[in-house]
């Protein structure tokens, strides 16, 4: 069985959590959940994970499995305590991400009369000024990667610095993982930078699918392929039903 793009994405997401130590990994969405659990079973067994509702799980169950040994209680009120306290890495979705790593999940268009109302800001403003934050973009396109987001829900480093030390102290936009590439905000003036392209993807394809001038280093490596151990974990343990292919199609 050949290595699929979804598996590459899962491993890239796992890598984003590899060096986090003993913190609360909060994945929003399917591939982030898969990647976090993969990290916990391989590179970072100290990660703390939840059922997405109110329980810390002692084991690392398959996606959406109901039962597992419980090691703690994390109702929403305590999530906000962890956010303010700091030991957390959240990977959120993003309807838009801009050149400066700002993210939008609130609405498209003018805030007063949006063309399309989305979720609202949720916890993005608090997450981005308190704990490590990454983004997952399942369909890399110039509709998502825009010059400037319509509404800043998640705060990028330049805006955090402009808002003062209270905002910048703990602002830490770590990775943006998409179906095409891995990026961060380490470009000039805290702009989005290409870190690697997934196997089979060219740098030009990523450039074309990005609606702003992307910082591209002279030498762009290829995102690593998942190891045989990781492939077994993904396919046979965490996602035997192939739910990941709903987000990143198998033939992509």
């Amino acid at each position, binding site marked *: 069985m050949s290595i699929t793009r979804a598996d590459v994405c899962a491993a890239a997401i796992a890598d984003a959590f590899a060096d986090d130590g003993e913190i609360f990994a909060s994945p929003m969405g399917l591939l982030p959940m898969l990647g976090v659990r993969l990290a916990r079973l391989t590179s970072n067994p100290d990660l703390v994970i939840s059922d997405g*509702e*109110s*329980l810390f799980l002692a084991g690392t169950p398959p996606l959406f499995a109901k039962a597992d040994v419980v090691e703690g209680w994390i*109702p*929403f*009120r305590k999530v*906000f305590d962890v*956010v*303010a306290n700091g030991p957390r890495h959240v990977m959120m979705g993003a309807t838009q991400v801009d050149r400066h790593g700002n993210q939008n999940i*609130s*609405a498209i268009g003018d*805030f*007063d*009369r*949006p*063309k*399309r*109302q*989305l*979720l*609202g*800001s*949720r*916890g*993005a*403003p*608090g997450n*981005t*000024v*308190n704990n490590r934050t990454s983004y997952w973009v399942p369909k890399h396109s110039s509709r998502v990667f825009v010059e400037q987001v319509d*509404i*800043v*829900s*998640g*705060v990028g480093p330049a*805006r*955090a610095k*402009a*808002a*003062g*030390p*209270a*905002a910048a*102290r*703990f*602002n830490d936009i770590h990775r943006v993982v998409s179906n095409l590439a891995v990026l961060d905000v380490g470009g000039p003036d805290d702009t989005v930078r290409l870190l690697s392209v997934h196997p089979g993807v060219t740098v030009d394809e990523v450039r074309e699918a990005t609606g702003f001038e992307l910082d591209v280093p002279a030498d762009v490596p290829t995102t690593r392929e998942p190891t045989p151990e990781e492939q077994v974990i993904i396919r046979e343990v965490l996602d035997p039903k192939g739910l990941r292919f709903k987000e990143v199609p198998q033939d992509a």
Partner: protein
Amino acid sequence: MSKGPRDKRMSIDDVVGELRSGMTIGIGGWGPRRKPMALVRAILNSDLTDLTIVSWGGADVGLLARAGKIRRLVYAFVSLDSVPLEPSFQKARQEGTIPEVVELDEGMFQTGLRAAAQRLPFLPMRAGLGSDVLVNNPWIKTVESPYDEGHGHEDLVAVPALRLDVALVHLNRADRHGNATYLGPDPYFDDLFAMAAERTYLSVEQVVDTAGLTVDTPVQRLLLSRMLVDGVVETPNGAHFTTCTPDYERDERFQRAYAKAASGSDEDWTAFEQRFLAGDEAAYQAAVREFQEEQA
């Protein structure tokens, strides 16, 4: 004969009779979880208008927005979980029918309720800094720390108190005096809503004797004390179609039917409204039972 604490049992109509147009009403629960839906449905059928609604929103916000009851909405998100975007809320925002919206970070929302609960004008917080929450709500100010901790005086968000005239919450069980327990996985913020409000009306799946509150569940689940509660209404299935674990989970089929009607044509919505929302709570529950039998 010794006098006990007051009996606060009342009907759904009694609760609505205590509300006034223009009030600020906090709605407990979270998104599509343990919402006081029977009370929300009763508001839909009342003359109440110009309400300020404060809610971690789900269909409560969608329904009230659709019915034109909301003048001002304070929220951090509105979601049905399994249906990520609430169609009635989306429609209201896109058509501009909610005159005033205050979108906060969800932690700011908790901090605002905490400030109100502690009778403080504000509480400082990091969340919101650098984001458009402050741009779109220019009335929310920052406050400079009086302490220099080695990196200067931090400027923090002065999250304003979210004071409520009334809180509406739904729990699993209460006694007639207003002591109440939740039995599910998460208390959400219903105690905070109660403390932030002048008055709190509580609906529950079941009213039991006070001794019954702790026979089969730990005392730590006693979320609300009668000091915080002004009225108790027994509304079995009163959180439907949101979750009320362990009494029942979300009615996903019904929620899908709601979302489909809400995102469909005006005729689709009118048909849904006529079938489910035109009568009282007993009529609603009967229509839901009929719907469930059809779907079975």
